[in-house]
């Protein structure tokens, strides 16, 4: 029978079929960070169980760490405790661990691919819902909770229910001034936040194939915002090119063996999907969110919608609340909306290509006086080094942007990088939920180029004619 890519990944990792589409699935890779792992290690110890495969783990602090003054003690004692706990557990179990200050340290979803830990065809999990990122390699990546973290530690498997297959095909060519972020925001705007619930989304079509690995990661990263636990893109030459030579990539004869295997990782011609959505990339305009859910998205040339335009009464009510929270009114233009902060970073948009995209807009310009703070946070120490080798840091600093140390930073309002109540942020992260970037903060999700341009103008502008 014809299979989808997801069907193939499922079959490749099935340890035991339990019927009714439930299976015991083998997990090849486990990324561990300070927030969701302590209870897993605690549970293991309490039950007197052993860690099954330490070679399948990579541990790194990212969520809670400050991105400046990193040589000073952590300002938050709770964070310090979590970080110390991760280090202690890493030592106790002899894990591969990249502490702060190590150039290999960074956001879990940035360092996995960077180190060749993420490879085509693997199952890869992490206690962070944006693990869908790794799907860009044709890897089955998905977020798990702390109990599952413990289950993987003890058994290297998970009991899973097979998801349905969904395909999002992006036809055409992406216009100049748009990026992968605009594609994925447009997709979420179209399918809605629950559009992919219960499904794994495979992204396909010429506009997806034309993306670099960085762009593909941005797209898969946000599959979860469309409700899908995992997103996938079939590996191709672009993928192999990226992986080759990385720290944990197969070498020599094993490389050829691996590539031969990876070439089979695609949906069969006649595979049937439970749900199909098609988009035309050439119609995409730079996107921006107006509300408190990633599906609340419009083109930058658009206006804040009226709550009355939603048929669903729940959605209407949410829109009323969102407009109140965001201090916006129906019909208001997105263009010209004043901002207070800029955040370029997060596992969605903190890779070298994202920083280049921001730099190309910033070069030779200055951050607007009205902007309180504009920060650029590289996804890893290696991204930082690369950016500095290309002189991007100078472009940012000269323009008045803050050039930071790697970490999750203002993506989640958990570390010192937060926006104040009522402050409006042009952000390249993935979530604009109420309070996500700090209590009362107002987030607008955009691409790196759009965030950079907003920082210069002090308000949202259309980067295509900026």
């Amino acid at each position, binding site marked *: 029978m014809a299979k989808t890519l997801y069907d193939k990944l499922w079959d490749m990792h099935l340890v035991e079929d339990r019927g009714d589409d439930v299976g015991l699935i083998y997990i090849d890779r486990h990324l561990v960070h300070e927030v969701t792992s302590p209870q897993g290690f605690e549970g293991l110890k309490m039950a007197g169980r052993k860690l099954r495969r330490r070679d399948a783990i990579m541990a790194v602090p990212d969520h809670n760490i400050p991105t400046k003054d990193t040589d000073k003690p952590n300002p938050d004692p709770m964070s310090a405790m979590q970080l110390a706990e991760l280090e202690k557990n890493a030592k106790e179990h002899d894990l591969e661990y990249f502490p702060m200050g190590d150039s290999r340290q960074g956001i879990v979803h940035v360092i996995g691919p960077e180190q060749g830990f993420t490879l085509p065809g693997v199952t890869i999990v992490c206690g962070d*819902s944006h693990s869908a990122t790794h799907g860009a390699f044709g890897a089955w990546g998905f977020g798990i909770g702390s109990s599952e973290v413990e289950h993987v530690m003890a058994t290297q498997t998970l009991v899973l229910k097979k998801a349905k297959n969904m395909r999002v095909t992006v036809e055409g060519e992406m216009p100049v001034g748009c990026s992968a972020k605009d594609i994925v925001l447009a997709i979420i705007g179209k399918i809605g936040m629950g559009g992919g619930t219960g499904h794994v989304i495979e992204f396909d079509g010429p506009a997806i194939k034309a993306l670099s690995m960085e762009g593909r990661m941005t797209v898969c990263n946000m599959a979860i915002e469309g409700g899908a636990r995992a997103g996938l893109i079939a590996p191709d030459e672009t993928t192999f090119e990226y992986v080759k030579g990385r720290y944990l990539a197969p070498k020599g004869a094993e490389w050829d063996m*691996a590539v031969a295997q990876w070439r089979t990782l695609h949906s069969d011609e006649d595979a049937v999907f439970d749900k199909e959505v098609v988009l035309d990339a050439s119609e995409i305009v730079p996107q921006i969110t107006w509300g408190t859910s990633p599906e609340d998205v419009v083109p930058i040339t658009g206006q804040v919608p009226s709550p009355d335009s939603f048929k669903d009464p729940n959605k209407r009510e*949410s829109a009323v609340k969102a407009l109140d929270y965001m201090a916006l009114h129906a019909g208001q233009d997105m263009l010209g909306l004043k901002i207070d902060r800029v955040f370029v970073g997060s596992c969605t948009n903190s890779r070298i290509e994202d920083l280049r995209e921001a730099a190309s807009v910033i070069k030779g310009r200055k951050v607007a006086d009205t902007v309180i703070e504009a920060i650029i946070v590289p996804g890893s120490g290696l991204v930082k080094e690369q950016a500095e080798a290309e002189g991007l840091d100078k472009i940012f600093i000269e323009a008045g942007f803050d050039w930071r140390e790697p970490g999750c930073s203002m993506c*989640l309002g*958990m570390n010192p990088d937060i926006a104040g109540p009522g402050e409006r942020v042009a952000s390249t992260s993935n979530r604009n939920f109420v309070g996500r970037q700090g209590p009362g903060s107002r987030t607008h999700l955009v691409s790196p180029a759009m965030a950079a341009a907003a920082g210069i103008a002090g308000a949202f502008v259309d980067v295509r004619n900026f």
Partner: protein
Amino acid sequence: MEKFTHMTSTAIALEQSNIDTDIIMPSDYLKTIKRTGLGKHAFESLRYTKDGTLRNDSPFDFGAGKTSKILVVGDNFGCGSSREHAPWGIADLGIRCLIGTSFADIFASNCVKNGILTITLPEEDVAALMRDAKAGKKITVDLEAQTVSVDGSDDRGFEYNPQHKYMMVNGLDEIGQTLLVEDKITAFEEQQRLQSPWLYRELPQ
């Protein structure tokens, strides 16, 4: 884990749809390294005003809400981040069962692992239960029979994953259950090592 066979309780109605895990457990409280004691922070914005005083419309803290073991919720409950602190907080409030039209995948699987039953019912049933909850009626959830009833009548059947049911009804820990087939896991690894040797490495001690 405590066994879950059946129970009867008043219920709290939370009509809002898309209640995400940030609302269930704000990120400020994710820094704990323990699993217990999070109940006091659960649904904080629905229970407390900005200055930290209890809201007088908090459905959790007055009357029957204080002892309710059931939550009747709006669509797409538990969306957003995968934090397991959300079900930990819910469990710590003494709630063992959630009834709604749809639950986010990760959230629902985190619930099973913490002994919380999530029941999916059609919209009109959830709307009716929402009214019953507000009227202070008692709802009976029988997992063994897979039914929900109010005041002993109106039996509504619900679907539930048989594997999860077995675990809930027997109060079983999932890891222990998986380790019963450890030989299969080992056999899988031996096979995979031949086919994809690059997935295994010797880490220095």
